[in-house]
């Protein structure tokens, strides 16, 4: 009985110190943030009055907010979907490579090791209309030069390409770990039953990977939602506001205009959106778990 109790409580006891520290260092800023979202708050103001829901009502009337929400949604959906598709394809190829897996892995992982600001600067140079290497190759191939970062229709795709370049390897490595964990037996059974490669992929690989896929999507979505550094280095939210994401307008409000209260309100809305998404993924994960235990 005692052993059983220890087995149940043991993991929580081991995690407790870390969790307590995390809560201590996180809980205050979180509560502070929630509080100032109801204030007209500036760090240099003599008084920071409570304004009720004014920050939130102003937010929903602010066209910049709705634009940023739209840009963020396009960015998150495009990057996460493409990174997943390319990452999965790479992981499958890499998993089947007879030799050179480690070398290939090391090379492919390089972008993750780079700071987003460095990546942003690098792509800014590469996509420079006059001096950039990208336009050099475009011309070599007979295409005209493009204003990648100052064209209204190309700036957001340019950011999406940059993010895909940096973060696809992350998706790939998680999915590769998942692939390596799938036992051979289900494939052997499927093979005996005469399943085609596509059927094996659809009915064996994907279900076996489902939890890993959920985790990968979860992590990348949260991260893509917060994109800031790359935008700062590449487009600064422009041209006009076609690359202004929610994080970008939080920065503008908080650190350019010192309107911390309004910025905090945007953060809270961001949180609600992300948490809703997480709940959805978690629900799916629970479903998979339930299916698995059946």
């Amino acid at each position, binding site marked *: 009985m005692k052993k059983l109790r220890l087995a149940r409580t043991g993991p929580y006891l081991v995690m407790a110190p870390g969790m307590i520290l995390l809560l201590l260092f996180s809980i205050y800023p979180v509560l502070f943030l929630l509080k100032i979202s109801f204030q007209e708050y500036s*760090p240099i103001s003599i008084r920071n009055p409570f304004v009720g829901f004014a920050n939130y009502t102003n937010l929903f009337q602010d066209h910049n907010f709705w634009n940023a929400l739209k840009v963020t949604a396009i960015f998150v959906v495009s990057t996460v979907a493409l990174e997943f598709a390319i990452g999965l394809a790479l992981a499958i190829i890499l998993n089947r490579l007879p030799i050179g897996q480690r070398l290939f892995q090391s090379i492919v992982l390089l972008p993750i090791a780079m700071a987003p600001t460095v990546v942003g600067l690098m792509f800014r140079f590469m996509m420079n209309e006059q001096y950039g290497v990208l336009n050099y190759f475009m011309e070599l191939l007979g295409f005209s030069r493009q204003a990648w*970062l100052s064209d209204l229709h190309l700036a957001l795709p340019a950011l999406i390409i940059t993010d895909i370049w940096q973060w696809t390897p992350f998706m790939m490595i998680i999915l590769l770990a998942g692939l390596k964990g799938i036992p051979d037996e289900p494939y052997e059974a499927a093979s005996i039953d005469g399943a085609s490669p596509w059927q094996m992929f659809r009915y064996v690989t994907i279900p076996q990977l489902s939890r890993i896929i959920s985790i990968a999507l979860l992590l990348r979505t949260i991260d893509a939602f917060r994109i800031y550094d790359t935008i700062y280095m590449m487009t600064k939210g*422009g041209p006009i506001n076609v690359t202004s994401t929610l994080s970008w307008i939080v920065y*503008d409000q908080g650190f350019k205009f010192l309107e911390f209260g309004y910025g905090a309100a945007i953060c809270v809305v961001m949180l609600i959106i992300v948490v809703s998404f997480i709940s959805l993924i*978690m629900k799916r994960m629970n479903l998979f778990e339930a299916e698995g235990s059946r």
Partner: protein
Amino acid sequence: MNRNKGIKTSFILLLVCLFVLSACSSKSDQGSASSAASSGSASQSASSASGANVTLNGVFLGATWGQATQELAKEYEKETGVKVNIELVGRDVMYQKLALAIAGQANYDLFNVDYNWIPEFASTNSLLPLDDLIKKYNVDTSAYLPRALALTQWNGKNGSFGEGGTIYGLPQTIHPHLLWYRADLFNDPKNKADFKAKYGYDLAPPKTMAQFKDAAEFFNGKVVDGQKIYGWAAQASKGFGNVHTWLSFLYSNGADVIDWNTMKSSLSTPQAIEATKTWVDLLKYSPPGINDYTFAEVASDAAQGKLAMAIHWSWSAFEVDDPKTSKTVGKWEFVQLPAMKESVPHLAGWSIVIPKTSKNAEEAFKFMTWLENKQNDVKQALMGGGDPVRTESYSDPALTGAKIDGTDVQRFRRYTALSEAMKTTKARPFFPQEEKWETTVSEYLSAAQFGKMSVEEALAKADEAVNKMLK
């Protein structure tokens, strides 16, 4: 089993909440952390302020004048024994540091500030007024260029640039817009003949905006030394660049951005519309991608010989005269901006202020006055720091006689035009919400540049947004 799942799910959701919110609030957290961390050293400095071993902490822009300050601080320590730590940061970080340092009473004594922040921080009682110290140490403020000193003054009234008021800092460098032109191209006999044949008058540095347009059109697309050149360039990116260039056009056409009596945005006046249309129209003679041009691209194109003209800051001229990086050393000349109704260039400049939270205010003031004395104003210019702020520096033989290394070309040949520009130049709107104003207007100007809105529509929408902001 289901209950366990529920607990697990809630627990993970809580963690995710904390991560996301922590990310949102990390800066404010940092602020309080840094202030907490620094409060210990603040009291230490306070106690040492009365003693011999004072240490000053300053934050300066990571530009050439910030680097010069770092060097000169070493000399100051040798002379006085006062150690001055100078931290160099970018403009955005500087603004954040200043705000958070004031909020957290951190241990900083000096800040290099873009002048448009002075009304904002002075209005919240965050900067130390210097009038008493100026009197105590008998500092002659009349030695400074009047418009340079005016950048540090605030009388509490919106739009009061040049009207005097409490002095909150000392100017460190100024750089009004000048018209840069390639003298070798303008003096070329063939160009002169072709220009006269096409436009019916002599090719010369443009004095009016109509002449500027002709010259831009004339040179745009020509091939010089095997490379295609463009008529002109200036900062045009969204952010601050486009507002800065546009202001020179606006001011030169007799317009102002705000009616300071009623505090209503005045961007839809006929003068403002005409100035904006002129500027937007002229962009067609600029390099492709001009709408993304920041300070760096303009200077780089000028140095690489891709431009015939530029409207750019005076101080940046050092970049085209650097033999290591420029293909156009000694080829650029500088004159006053072409006039629409008159020539009123937009003025940029950086000043030095003392936050009210400084524990060594008097020592900081002494360093500041030493840094901006006659000798060091010249020295900073010679070190490549920035354009001087004292009137007498502009006739100092050390500067007027200086030559570009290995050439016979005057290094500071821009000073004649610069001194003239400093008689008419005008600052950005002088009021506490300037930073937000600039960001707001920048977006609508950008829409007009890209043709997403007509100039009239963009300015009307900007008026609406600014008026909402001013409420």
